[in-house]
């Protein structure tokens, strides 16, 4: 079986869609192909975060552990998702546990390497951050909807139907 290069894999990922080929080539130098089995831990709360993942295929759970209640899944992410932005801002630690639910294939990025490349090419760095901001904004919007508990019992939350 022919193994695809990292920039070929990135080309197929929605986050990198339409990015200049020379940038993709540069970025791919910081990436490596990874795979996780169901149940395997991908990241742990409180551990240093110098990485992020571009999920190609599979499904992962973002979890938080609370004593007494056990592990609670806050969100699941699948094909085409971007995982982890704690590397962008201090204190650069993972805020949640991440666990594979299904066999998950992803590109893992070393963000120390990536930051250096962004410093070398601010235009690329800007484009990269713009895309990250869009992902964060989408995720924030979805989380707000989730927090509203629209299907709950309070007020007119049951919807038509």
């Amino acid at each position, binding site marked *: 079986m022919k193994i695809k290069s990292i920039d070929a894999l990135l080309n197929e990922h*929605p986050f990198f869609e339409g990015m200049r080929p020379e940038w993709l080539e540069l970025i791919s130098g910081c990436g490596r192909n990874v795979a996780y089995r169901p149940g395997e831990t991908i990241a742990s709360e409180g551990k240093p975060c110098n990485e992020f993942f571009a999920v190609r295929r599979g*499904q992962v*759970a973002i*979890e938080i552990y609370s004593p007494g*209640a*056990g*592990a*609670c*899944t*806050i*969100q*699941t*992410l*699948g*094909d*085409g998702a971007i995982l982890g932005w704690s590397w962008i801002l201090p204190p650069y630690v993972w805020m949640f546990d991440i666990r594979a*639910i299904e066999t998950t294939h992803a590109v893992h990025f070393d963000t120390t390497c990536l930051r250096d490349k962004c410093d070398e090419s601010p235009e690329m760095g800007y484009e990269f951050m713009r895309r990250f901001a869009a992902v964060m904004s989408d995720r924030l*919007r*979805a*989380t707000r*909807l*989730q927090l*509203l*508990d*629209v*299907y*709950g*019992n309070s007020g*007119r*939350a*049951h*919807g*038509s*139907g």
Partner: protein
Amino acid sequence: MHTEAAERLVPTPYVVRDAWQETHNVVSLELAPEGDGVLEPCAPGQFNMLWAFGAGEAPISASSVGASGSAVLHTIRQAGNVTRALCAAAPGDVIGLRGPFGRGWPLERARGRDVIVMAGGIGLAPLRPVLEHLETFRDDFGRVTLLYGTRSPEDILFRGELENWRGRFDFDVQVTVDTAVRGWASNVGAVTELLPRAVFEPERSMALLCGPEIMMRFCIQALRGRGVPPEWIHLSMERNMKCAVGLCGHCQWGADFVCKDGPVFPLDRIEGRLSVRER
């Protein structure tokens, strides 16, 4: 008063033939005519007014077109007095029915198109007849996607049907919940998060939405973001009702009466009013 409309204000007695718990706060009732009076069957998306004697009346959509003979099926979530009384009904009890009312889902228009069904919570109930229709006339439609969001795994409605639809190679069924403990092997997150993974051609799709209004507003943004034109997005609107026949004005919403011009509306007709609050 117009005689036909007046006649439609009088409930027809139906007896509870069967009643079962769908979840901790949702009950389905199979209702059969008690005497000679029989209502027309509801088209998908239409509703009946259900009268719980001693408690009052509530608009409830048909939740299946599959009930046998002249029976009707309704799925009810406990919200307040009336729905609590309806949920407590047992086989043999009598309920008053008026209907069918309103305009349902425009399934004829959807022929040949990809269909995206987005349901939230009890909103899956008025959409189940749509999925039954799509199953029966599967070849008349393009890709079929069901995206269903609810509160927790315990709140999932119609598990058997969801499994059947998921088992079909020609239905893409995705369920998500707002919260779950470890062990839940499916999606957690808002229903809108399921949309990017759904495969459909936005320009030749029809989206059908039913759920809490807030959820539908988020879904609209996500669908518009994918390029689905507003005239191909349809929503079932929740507005309080009294007469259900366009007489009392209780459900008036802009130029429309939700009871007779809706409850299903195309987005291009109502977009400007979506944020207008109920009187």
